């Protein structure tokens, strides 16, 4: 873990709402370059909202989002993706009628990288997820759930991000496949120095993977600490792990 002087992503006092319902009530999160940070919490805690607010939809009502020292709170959504922040949204959201190749190409299209850079990243994605190479000419919709998740992450990687936001990558996946996904994230972090913010229901897996973690309850961060610290906390164990252990 490298400790940079300024964090890669700093969220300060962030508030966001859907109409009158306040989903984020003043959230503070810091992510240093080279870290994996896990954000855990129950359904409706505001985890996904935080992820989407970083991308400008919904817009923040108050607070600031600083990326690499720059305030990106008001930047339009499509421009945020050009700042080398990539997102693998909840529910995978691949393009089902387009081929795997086209899905991956979509990730690279908006970044304006050279052909060589694109090819290198494609090979990197194939090394991480050999399945995608096998399925290259197939339609995205014909892939299995796990393969679709790999494709969603691969597509996000094609924009060669510095910061990768992953929303529930293990959702609805068999434990073995989920582990493959987590392994790939760990590899990306260690070998490529990719900074990752991962939102997860699967607290056990996520906290084992992450350097640090945040616990979110009702739109507020209630706990923060290193992954192993949080795993030991009795209230975490009670709320998120008891009865749900499979590790």
């Amino acid at each position, binding site marked *: 873990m490298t400790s940079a002087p300024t964090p890669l992503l700093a969220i300060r006092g962030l508030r966001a709402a859907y109409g009158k319902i306040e989903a984020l009530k003043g959230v503070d999160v810091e992510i240093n370059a080279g870290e994996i940070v896990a954000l855990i919490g129950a359904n409706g805690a505001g985890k996904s909202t935080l992820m989407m607010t970083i*991308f400008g*939809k919904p817009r923040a009502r108050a607070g600031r989002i600083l990326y690499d020292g720059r305030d990106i709170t008001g930047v*339009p*959504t*499509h*421009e*945020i*993706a*050009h700042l080398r922040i*990539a*997102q*693998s*949204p909840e529910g995978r*959201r*691949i*393009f*089902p*009628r*387009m*081929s795997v*190749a*086209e899905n*991956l*190409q*979509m*990730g690279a*299209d*908006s*970044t304006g990288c050279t052909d060589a850079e694109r090819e290198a990243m494609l090979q990197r994605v194939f090394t991480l997820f050999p*399945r995608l*190479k*096998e*399925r*290259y*000419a*197939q339609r995205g919709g014909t*892939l*299995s759930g*796990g*393969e679709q998740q790999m494709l969603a992450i691969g*597509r*996000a990687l094609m*924009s060669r991000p510095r910061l990768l936001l992953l929303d529930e990558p293990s959702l609805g996946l068999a434990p073995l496949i989920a582990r493959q996904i987590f392994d790939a994230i760990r590899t990306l972090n260690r070998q490529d120095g990719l900074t990752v913010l991962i939102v997860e229901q699967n607290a056990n897996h996520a906290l084992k993977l992450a350097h640090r973690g945040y616990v979110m309850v009702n739109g507020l961060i209630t706990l923060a600490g290193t992954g192993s610290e949080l795993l030991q906390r009795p209230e975490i164990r009670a709320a998120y792990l008891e009865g749900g252990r499979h590790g």
Partner: protein
Amino acid sequence: MTAPSTNTAKPATGIPALLKTAFTNALVALVLFSLMVGIRTEAGSSGQLTYWTRFGELASLVGVVFGGSIVIELFRQWIGPSGAERLVPPAVHSGMAFVGRFLAPALLIFALLVPVIFYDQRYILDLGILVLTYVMLGWGLNVVVGLAGLLDLGYVAFYAVGAYSYGLIATNFGWSFWVCLPLAGILAACWGVLLGFPVLRLRGDYLAIVTLAFGEIIRLVIINWQELTGGPNGVPGIPRPTLFGIPLDNSDDGLAAKLGIEYSSTHRIVFLFYLILALALLTNWVTIRLRRLPIGRAWEALREDEVACRALGINTTTTKLTAFATGAMFGGFAGAFFATRQGFISPESFTFQESALVLAIVVLGGMGSQLGVALAALTMIGGFELFRGLETYRMLVFGMAMVLIMIWRPRGLIGHRAPTVYLTKAQAISSDLVKEGHG
């Protein structure tokens, strides 16, 4: 494909089962029709209710249902349980693939030769021009509906804008067709953007309603803005197109006189045929090129998932507006062609029916497929003419044919889409692995 389909097909074998099904259907028909057909009521001369029975008609109807259900059931057994794999033998499959590969070039060559083969048949040439106009409109709308997935029920508005642009500019300022053609396209594209702005946040049904209204608004404005458009009287005397300044008429500086050949009115028809063919091919070429560029892929991705698009850094606003503008531009070109072909335009040519027809062509062809749209235009417009002899029953037969096609091919004539990104090395590997059906 799945187990239940074989289960449902099983009990219906054997003559007793066949008769039982037919009898049940006939019974239902008897109950339904006994009041609807069996008894006829009418108001008598002094307002009293008179009625009489028509058991003969009733009996024949029930008989038709009985016989018909036997025929349908036999037909079903002859086809076998649903599942396309068993239906089509591999030889036919490879034959279809062969036809598929050469169908587009063959159609193109045929289209090029139509004026040569049917030079003396004015009717065929006119029909060809009509079909090609709809092919072009279909390809234009395909950008909006097929690729970008924006359901547009008011496409005729852009057709009208193009036609009136050319009609009004040519009659008022005397500009030539070749100057007006791009202008008509640009004006239509502007209207496309104008329509696009208010509907940026809409999708699906809501978008369809607004575009429908837009099409009607354009038509009503044309009808009511009499000083500019001539209202319901239309714009008469629109100049015919020229071959880069050389008119195709019987004058001394006409094309026939210049070439020293005898003048024939067919020259103009042939010229119009090649003109619309060139315009349609331009539409096709541009669409195919755009599909391989980031903007074309963004259109298709937008159709699939707007949220994912935004997360990938696609500006959905400009993507939608360019789709509307591109589609509208081709509509405008087609409109300008329509105006110069007819020599007269009026609001009657731009009703909702036209929008619906073009949309039907796109849907029937298979959303997003260029060849499919061309085939569908040929089927629809050609079908209209083919069934002309049936007179009153024309629409009925045509409608039934449409329903049958949609049952047979629910995704349109050509349902698959050609990929736009290839990896030559992996292509062979992947097709082998697909068959294993892993995952």
